[in-house]
């Protein structure tokens, strides 16, 4: 089981990092997602891998799994899920407004509309 989990984390991270280094926004987002999957499994494994052990107190349990990493993973999943949704929206809006989905282009210093600037 250890070998399986470890190689899964490795493959997910490698694929994630490769995709993050691509130049279009869609592969970058997929890469982020892979990397956040990898970190979730990794956090989970840091509580040590056990089978059939309850994480919360129950009568008749001889041994327990570490509950803390499971709580950490929940928090991490919620945050990474929300952030993925945000970056998808950002990439879409950016594509619609600039007509390009390349992430490595210099940010154009577009003339902002007159009302954009504060007039005080």
């Amino acid at each position, binding site marked *: 089981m250890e070998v399986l989990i470890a190689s899964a984390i490795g493959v997910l991270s490698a694929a994630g990092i490769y995709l*993050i280094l691509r130049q279009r*926004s869609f592969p*970058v987002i997929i890469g*982020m997602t892979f*990397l*956040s999957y990898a*970190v979730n499994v*990794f*956090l989970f494994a*840091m509580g040590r891998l056990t089978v059939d052990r309850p994480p919360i107190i129950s009568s008749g349990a001889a041994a327990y799994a570490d509950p*803390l*990493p499971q709580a*950490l993973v929940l*928090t*991490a999943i919620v*945050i*990474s899920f*929300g*952030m993925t949704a*945000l*970056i998808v929206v*950002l*990439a879409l*809006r*950016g594509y619609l*407004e*600039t007509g390009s989905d390349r*992430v490595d*282009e210099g*940010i*154009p*210093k*577009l003339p*902002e509309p007159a009302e*954009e*600037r*504060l*007039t*005080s």
Partner: protein
Amino acid sequence: MSSWIVAPIILPAMAAALLLLLRRSPNLQRQVSLAATALLCLSSIRVFMLAIEGDVLSYRLGDWPAPFGIVLVLDRLSATMVLLSGVLSSAVMLHAIRGWDEKGHHFHPLFQFQLMGINGAFLTGDVFNLFVFFEVMLIASYGLLLHGGGPRRLGAGFQYVAINLLGSTLFLFAVGIIYGVTGTLNMADLAGKVSQVAAGDAALLRTGALLLFLVFALKAALVPLHWWLPTAYAAAPAPVAALFAIMTKVGAYAIIRVFTLVFGAEGGAAAFIAAPWILPAALTTLAIGAIGVLASRVLVDLVCFAVVWSMGSLLVAVSLFDARSLTAALYYTLHSTLIGGALFLLSDLIACRRGRWRDDLEPSPVMANAAILGGLFFLAAIAMSGLPPLSGFIGKLMILDATRGSDSAGWIWSVVLATSLLVIIGFSRAGTMLFWKSEAVAGTLAPPAPARVASLAPAAVLILGTALLSLGAGPVTRHLEATAQQLVTPRSYMDAVLGGLAEAQRATEVR
């Protein structure tokens, strides 16, 4: 009285929820937000008064005992940083309510959530909780960066979000590794346990510590992880950029906190692990920042690179990790946050007075309020580039003095002084271009920008802050010396958090 500690986090959180309910009435929303920021400033003063009594105080959330529950810890360092964020955010709020807040939706709730994240990161005593507050701060900052919209912000926003998501993932890897080898995430508990890590796990611990350093260095814009900063800050709305001046300091704060408390002198296999990496990176940051200042063609870019440059000076001092250099680093932190915020506000004030020239460094017809604005810019430039008599000079002097005995003093002195010269040249060229060469340009700006002197007040307040920092340098330095002393002797921090448990641990160590 230690329940005051939670006030700087609770106040903005409740204000943000209230502000969301008030979104239909912008005027009321503005007043409530202003009042909440003022209250936050007052409560941070109260918290600061508690901390300077000398004891480290802890607040147990949910009243769970220390290594199991999450604690907030108030010592002199966190109190100073909370006070700094209170002062900066009040001035920024005064600037924002003059019109910027109406350029998009939900400015005020996001602003309060940002303050909650920043103050939480300063106060928390738990590594995973630090991650959560980093996320609160970052999520709010994504919204604030995009405030007002436009293709430029969307492009910059995507890069900013992507790099910070990557940083968060690395943070989680680091947290996972550290939890895996020590079995705790409470900073005070970690400080006791990292020295007892088994020899076989030492490499893992060092990896975790360096990954953590990488994440904080990304937030602190340390070269080569600084490339996101000029793009993001230059695209952000001016008051947001001014507030972001403290976000880089959150990174510096986290480096100081974790690498003195946990991976400091008693860090076992990972003692002072970050120190050899910080110094070369900080010196490169100084060089890149100064070159960027010289190369900028737009005032706001120049300010961004000046902020990068000031992070370099700050971290040069941090890299030595002794009481004197930490004092210098903390003084420089106070100075560079205030002056960074002031410069972002000034560049906005200049841009909105120059019509189509905006803040490009080209001569334009004379802008409104040129005399007062020029005077303020002159003072801010003096302070930022480190000329006497303002606080930049004192801070730089303290850094140079503290690094005198170091092995690499030659490198530090030559790089700090040479880059200071470059920054002085950059700022004087910008000021000449904006204010003096404009005198020779005929014609008037069309349409003439309305020019109310009152709009300069927030920037003037921040510059006054740096002036006070130089006038009161004696008492401020004495306070910061006590702060640094507290940092290099983490025992009081551990005792405050763990109470009797730390004593028991020490007893077993002795036996």
